[in-house]
């Protein structure tokens, strides 16, 4: 029985499993190219592999963050301009608890969990009053107040005001310096777990109601769903995920810049899912990879005017990939497939 | 019998939904043609497809001997088609006079047509300065029809004129539509079969995106089976 079910699962999730295998093997393969044996990579010898691991960790964190935004914006249709606050609360909370209060990691996680729920409730409080773009502006307002708190000099001893939060010592067993490979796998595992959870959520009855709310809230209301609770549920899950991403961010980065609380960081999430495709979970992952690599590549090879090319790439994506990478792929894949088949036939007939 | 509008087997998509799957309508010149059918059958979409607001993907629309499908909406309208949308969609932020003036296609249209419009709808004359928000439902409907009369239109597309109005008002409105149809051909969408049967000379029944039956209104009134089948109890 178990065997019978195993193979279809394998087949339908083939693409995902291959991607997963690639990411598991990635540090070692990069190590091999760099002339380091897998054993060296295993014990965290410095080199190209370690650097690539770092970049991948950043991508995983961004992907988590983008996933959380996709859930409320792409699936539930709530345009929020205050999403960076979810992330920043996780990032700053972790840093302050670890550094100033000497909490252990599990305890910190518990507190961040609570904080995540609380801020979802805070955003949820205004839900019945404001809709659409007004909701976006109100959430922007709440996030800005948080941003001001973070950079205010009064809270400087905790947040490091406008310099940023520094000197957080992450627990030794997942330290980005000495145990980076482990941190890499932990982040990857978290991302996979969250991704699977999201997949379940989106396909669950609750998730479907969320999608219905995006399409037409009035109709969902008429069908007898109290849309408020569904939106709140999506907000809570999203907030928790973003806070978790923020927590990982603090563990990995030596410094938490106040920028992560600003509007710009929300725009980052928006851009990522627009690049990948709004309302597609894969899109958030693809978008995060493209976004980070583009940014990194341009900064490294072009330097100062990188954001010029970045902007041009966004414009090009909007014009030529009308529904993001994954969204457009889904629409066109049938056509592309047909094209390949025609091509194959052409060669076959010769 | 001359045909003013000839819709030939049009197919219209909204998003990925195939809404019209073959609608044909022939409207003779100088008469009233009613589009009948249940809610959601595709009557409003037919009107919008004629105007190019939801352009048909297949089929032909011929207006006054000229093929108009594929043209831009405002070009189609400029050829002489007036549209009275459902839900009495007048411009609420504009005054009654502005609502009429905005429909001018040539300078002076409004001044020229003023008298005719006020003879049809005497109420509007005294409301001329009021903003659209202050009008009652019936007045709004009259304004919406009057707006379509300002320019020199050869054809009026009227969507659900009697919807949500009191019987007295419906009478008044029917009278006006009858009067104006002497000069302008009319294609009318109407849920209320009684109203439609009194007004129109010809009918087209649309069912699930297809035109299934058309002919003379007099014949339909006697055909109880058809009425029952496509329009429910009449």
């Amino acid at each position, binding site marked *: 029985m178990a065997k019978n079910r195993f193979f279809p699962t394998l087949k339908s999730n083939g693409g995902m499993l291959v991607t997963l295998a690639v990411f598991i093997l990635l540090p070692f393969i990069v190590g091999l190219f760099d002339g380091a044996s897998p054993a060296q990579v295993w014990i965290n010898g410095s080199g190209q592999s370690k650097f690539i691991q770092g970049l991948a960790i950043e991508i995983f964190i961004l992907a988590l963050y983008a996933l959380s935004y996709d859930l409320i914006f792409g699936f539930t249709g709530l345009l929020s301009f205050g999403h960076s606050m979810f992330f920043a609360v996780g990032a700053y909370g972790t840093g302050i608890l670890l550094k100033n209060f000497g909490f252990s990691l599990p305890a910190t996680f518990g507190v961040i969990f609570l904080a995540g729920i609380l801020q979802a409730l805070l955003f949820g409080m205004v839900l019945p009053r404001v809709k659409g773009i007004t909701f976006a502006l109100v959430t922007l307002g709440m996030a800005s107040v948080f941003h001001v708190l973070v950079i205010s000099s009064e809270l400087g001893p905790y947040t490091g005001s406008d310099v940023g939060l520094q000197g957080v010592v992450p627990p030794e067993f997942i330290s980005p310096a000495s145990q980076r490979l482990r941190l890499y796998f932990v982040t990857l595992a978290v991302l996979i777990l969250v991704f699977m959870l999201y997949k379940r959520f989106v396909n669950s009855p609750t998730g479907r109601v969320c999608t219905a709310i995006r399409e037409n809230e009035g109709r969902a209301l008429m069908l007898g769903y109290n849309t408020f609770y569904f939106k709140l549920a999506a907000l809570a899950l999203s907030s928790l995920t973003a806070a978790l991403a923020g927590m990982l961010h603090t563990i990995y980065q030596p410094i938490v810049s106040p920028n992560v609380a600003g509007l710009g960081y929300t725009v980052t999430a928006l851009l990522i899912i627009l690049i990948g495709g709004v309302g597609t979970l894969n899109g958030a992952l693809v978008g995060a990879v493209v976004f980070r690599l583009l940014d990194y590549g341009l900064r490294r090879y072009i330097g100062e005017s990188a954001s010029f090319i970045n*902007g041009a790439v966004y414009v090009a994506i*909007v014009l030529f990939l009308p529904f993001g990478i994954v969204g457009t792929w889904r629409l066109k894949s049938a056509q592309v497939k047909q094209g390949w088949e025609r091509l194959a036939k052409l060669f076959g007939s010769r | 019998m001359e045909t003013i509008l000839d819709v030939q087997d049009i197919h219209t998509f909204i998003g990925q939904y195939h809404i019209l799957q073959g609608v044909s309508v022939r409207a003779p010149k100088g008469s009233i043609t009613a589009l009948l059918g249940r809610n959601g059958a595709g009557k409003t979409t037919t009107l919008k497809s004629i105007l190019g607001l939801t352009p048909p993907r297949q089929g032909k629309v011929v207006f006054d001997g000229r093929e108009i499908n594929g*043209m831009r909406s405002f070009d189609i309208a400029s050829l002489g088609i007036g549209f009275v949308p459902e839900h009495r969609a007048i411009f609420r*932020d*504009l005054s009654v006079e502005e609502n009429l003036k905005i429909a001018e296609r040539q300078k002076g249209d409004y001044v020229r047509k003023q008298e005719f419009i006020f003879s049809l709808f005497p109420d509007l004359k005294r409301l001329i300065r009021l903003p659209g928000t202050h009008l009652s439902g019936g007045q709004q409907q009259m304004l919406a029809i009057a707006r379509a009369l300002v320019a020199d239109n050869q054809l009026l597309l009227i969507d659900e004129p009697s919807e949500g109005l009191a019987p007295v008002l419906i009478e008044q409105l029917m009278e006006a539509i009858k009067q104006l149809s002497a000069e302008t051909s009319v294609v009318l969408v109407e849920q209320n079969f009684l109203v439609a049967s009194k007004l129109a000379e010809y009918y087209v029944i649309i069912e699930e995106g297809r035109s299934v039956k058309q002919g003379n209104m007099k014949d339909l009134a006697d055909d109880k089976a058809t009425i029952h089948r496509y329009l429910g109890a009449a």
Partner: protein
Amino acid sequence: MSIFLRKNFTRLIVLAVLAALFVAAAGGMESSDFVITLLRGLSVGSLTFLVASGFSLIFGLLDVLNLAHGTLFMIGAYIGWTVYVRPDTFVDLLTPLFLIFSGFMLGDVWAVIGTRGLFAGGMKRILPWAGMLVSALILVGVLRSYPVSIWNPEDYAQSPVSISYLAGLGQNLLPPPAAFESISPLLAFAGLLLGSLLLAFSLALFAAGKQGLVSRLNWCSFAGFGAFLLAGILFFVFNDALTNFLASLNTNWLFLIAVSVAVATGVGLGALMETTLIRPLYIRPIYQLMLTLGLSAIGIEMVRAIWGRPEFTMPRPAFFAGTGEGCPATSLADWWQYHCSTMILLDGRIRIYNEIFVPIIGLTVLIGVWILLQRSRLGMVIRAGVQDREMVEALGINVRRVFTLVFALGVGLAALGGVLAAPSIGLSNMMGESFLLNALIALAIGGLTSYPGAALGSLLVGLLQQFIIKYGQIGIPIPFADIIFKPTPPIVPASTILLMVVVLLILPNGLLGKKE
């Protein structure tokens, strides 16, 4: 009347509370401080309004949240500065620009060629790409060797900062004009023209098929093409004469020209943006956000590359710059006589340009656009279109053209705001973003698509910011405690945002917005 009261009860209470707050805030300071703060608030409010009104018109009619609006505001400022301080650069650039845009005047012709299906199948796919590539190569090649006398942000002595400083002292010397060296003028013109035609043609091919059929060929477009071509050549022939004329003008006239050029650039940029980039996206509104964000990033980087990162100020025109005899003025009549830069009003010293001139222009624009909206046919169509675009189109009105006009008008207003801001708050790479945020907040407070709302919201934002800044200097005594609270700089933007949140929670459609 009583119905009006009942319907607007909450709204009136909020307005009353705001008025009470204003009175309380006024009561807490000296009258001289109050006058200055009030005027500064009006000034910031006016600039915010110029951004907000255009943004709101565009959002109301087109449903486009133009996040590049702030960047266009900034570009207006930098263009104005260039015309004002470096007329030679401006004149040098006119010829290539006119030639490059001449091809776009033939838009209708290209659309007709594109839709007639002269090219079928693979050809149709490859042609636009090939055309764009070739035209880009030609344009870049020609422009690289095209002589333009320009500043150099890398070299401090020739950077905009120094030029601006010298111009402020009246010691701005224009360098000798640049001459054709590596390329003959005729070849350059031919190249620019060819590149322009190719570019416009291939862009039109992309858009062809996505839009409805063009029924008629509009011969006016040839006239436009000819006019642009002729203008480009005339500017080349009379280059030196025009430069000398501009350089010898007094600064008041030059400022006026700078303002008009900045506004014209804004209008042109707006029209170009709407027709080429925004138009294909009306069916995918979310992606407009990404597009405008991308454009905004591009705009900022271009400004950085051309004018450099450091901030600088545009010198004020002579009318507002006097310091000598009779200054500071004691009355407006005095100022008229001596053209003082400052004036004493109720013991406070105010800057005429910043605190009198800018609000007056803001008020003029407010009234002007209001009249346009209420009294003209275009205004009628705009007001109708905000409510129901489809119906306006069904009346036989070319809504597309109205969209383009409104977008151009909105961007033009932003550019006007930018060039007016240049002498008062200076030019910086960040000015666009901060004013865009201000405008968004102002609109949210006033009502997103309400024109009077934009004015009221901008006024409130300007006043609130300036009052908080002033209280940051003098401090607010907290009652029943011996603490004097001094708001810190980060509180300034936060206070307006907080006001926005409170207003939106009480009145979700803003102070003057209509219910959906």
